[in-house]
């Protein structure tokens, strides 16, 4: 396993946000974390990215997070935070280059060029970042994170916190296709927090549903995205349509109610 989360608890101040989470992500697997606001998805991701103090064990390639040398870890684990605000006149290209470690100038140029064009931001390379739109900045940050783990030998882990939240539908597809390809072709393990259930159904290899700081269900889109689960976890009524493309489509029906339904808080691995 590239990522192993064992019995992890995260507290911020006196409040425990994440309770006893067990989760692992294998090489080449794209796992998406779902759940309502405040379910602890981002906090769990922060624990894995080293930004929130956690109890329990977090292993990257079998080695505890704290045992990694920071420089080496940065080549094996890319982290894209929910928001990056830049108040200084850096150009888009300079931001992507921050992700590069010592590479030959030729290779660095080629990589930057490649990433910018893949994420459709080549035309912005000399523009100043504070003047870019939210969606452009989001793709730019992804390019930086991808540059960071490109060319690394061995296992790699990519953590994405709502990496498509500011994107238009076309660019959501561009970005998630790129991430999916990274997982399938280059065997990168990806753990992503998403809110859009349909994007999750379309791209994830496995979904993990969180509620109130616990993983409550884990499995394929068909197993996790059912009217019963959505009702119990989010508290909304939905119709699920099976698409010919092979994944379900969630259509919210607009009736919401309080989240009171009991749901056994046990993480269940799909068969």
């Amino acid at each position, binding site marked *: 396993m590239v990522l192993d989360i064992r019995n992890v608890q995260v507290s911020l101040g006196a409040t425990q946000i994440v309770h006893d989470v067990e989760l692992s992500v294998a090489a080449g697997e794209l796992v998406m974390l779902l759940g309502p606001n405040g379910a602890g998805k981002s906090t769990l991701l922060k624990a894995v990215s080293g*930004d929130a103090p956690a109890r329990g064990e977090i292993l990257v390639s079998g080695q505890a997070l704290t045992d990694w040398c*920071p420089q080496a870890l940065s080549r094996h684990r890319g982290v894209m935070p929910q928001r990056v605000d830049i108040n200084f006149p850096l150009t888009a290209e300079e931001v992507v280059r921050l992700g590069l470690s010592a590479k030959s100038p030729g290779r660095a140029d080629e990589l930057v060029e490649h990433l910018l064009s893949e994420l459709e931001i080549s035309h912005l390379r000399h523009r100043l970042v504070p003047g870019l739109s939210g969606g452009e900045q989001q793709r730019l940050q992804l390019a930086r994170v991808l540059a960071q783990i490109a060319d690394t030998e061995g296992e790699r882990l990519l953590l994405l916190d709502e990496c498509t939240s500011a994107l238009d539908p076309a660019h959501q597809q561009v970005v998630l296709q790129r991430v999916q390809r990274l997982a399938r072709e280059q065997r990168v393990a990806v753990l992503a927090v998403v809110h859009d259930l349909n994007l999750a159904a379309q791209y994830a290899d496995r979904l993990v549903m969180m509620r109130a700081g616990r993983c409550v269900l884990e499995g394929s889109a068909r197993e996790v995205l059912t009217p019963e689960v959505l009702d119990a976890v989010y508290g909304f009524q939905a119709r699920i349509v099976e698409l010919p493309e092979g994944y379900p489509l969630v259509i919210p029906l607009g009736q919401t109610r309080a989240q009171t339904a009991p749901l056994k808080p046990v993480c269940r691995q799909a068969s």
Partner: protein
Amino acid sequence: MMLTPAGRLDAKPALLILGSGALAVALVSVSSGAYPLSVADILQVIAGKEATDPVASMVFLEVRMPRFLLGFLVGAVLAICGAVLQGLFRNPLADPGLIGVSAGASLAAIAVIVLGNTWLGGWLALTGDWALPIAAFIGGSLTVLLAWRIANRSGQTAVATLLLAGIAINAVAGAGTGLLTFYASDEELRSLTFWTMGSLGHAGWDDLVLGAPFMVLALVLVPWLARPLDAFLLGESVVGHLGYRTDTVKKVAIVVVGLGVGAAVAVSGLIGFVGLVVPHLVRQVLGASHRIVLPFSALLGGTLLVAADSLARVVVAPAELPIGLMMALIGGPFFLALLVRTRVM
């Protein structure tokens, strides 16, 4: 081409332009003053030849040279400290003066001057000639740390809190300074006035010997910060994600600012706005990467301070304006313009 595709000045021509400017300013600075020196005089002294005018030789070597060197070093160090603080706090408005670091260093220095013969006698015995710069270093570092603790919450610097903390720190340090002034003797009072207005008027080789090691150490440490500070521009958590040890970077930055501002305050008193104006200008023209901002800020900061000092010597000749006042006259309006512009944006 002089411009990069991003519409900025290329580093090489910029270095050429700024370098020539610095040389010109240096020449003006060492030649002008109450006893004007000609370029021929200066070249003669530099070449080591027997000067035709012995007074010229004395004025150049004992008065102008140390003053020029000290002014340049102080300007360079203050500008770099500004750039480091701005990177660290991710805020272009952070400045050693605004957030109270200079005031903290100054308070420590003034305490040594006033209480050196009484309460702080032990400190003087322990540190000897270095009592002042070391005290200013400690005062400066502690203030950076304090501002950091107050304004930084879980990796985010609250700008308003930082600037308000600066007001509070400046007020407390100012009250401390006032209290010490109250207890000071007439002779001490004269030195205190020098601190609060900032001046290079008494600069001699002994000041250079006391201040330079601290400032040079700050300048030696600072290149190590360039890349991590670039990462800081993306946010404190990103620094860790990119493989830097965030805590170590912060500590080094605080030591650099403490050393630099402490030593600058110890030898030249309170000189504001260099740290605010200079890095800002460099970023506008050459971009925000610290590998460019830090060296160019040093060069421009040194040049600017020497130029301001030369001006301060001639505007009301034969008297001279304190350079702190001079910089406040230049920097104050600049800061206001910056605020208005930021608001418009």
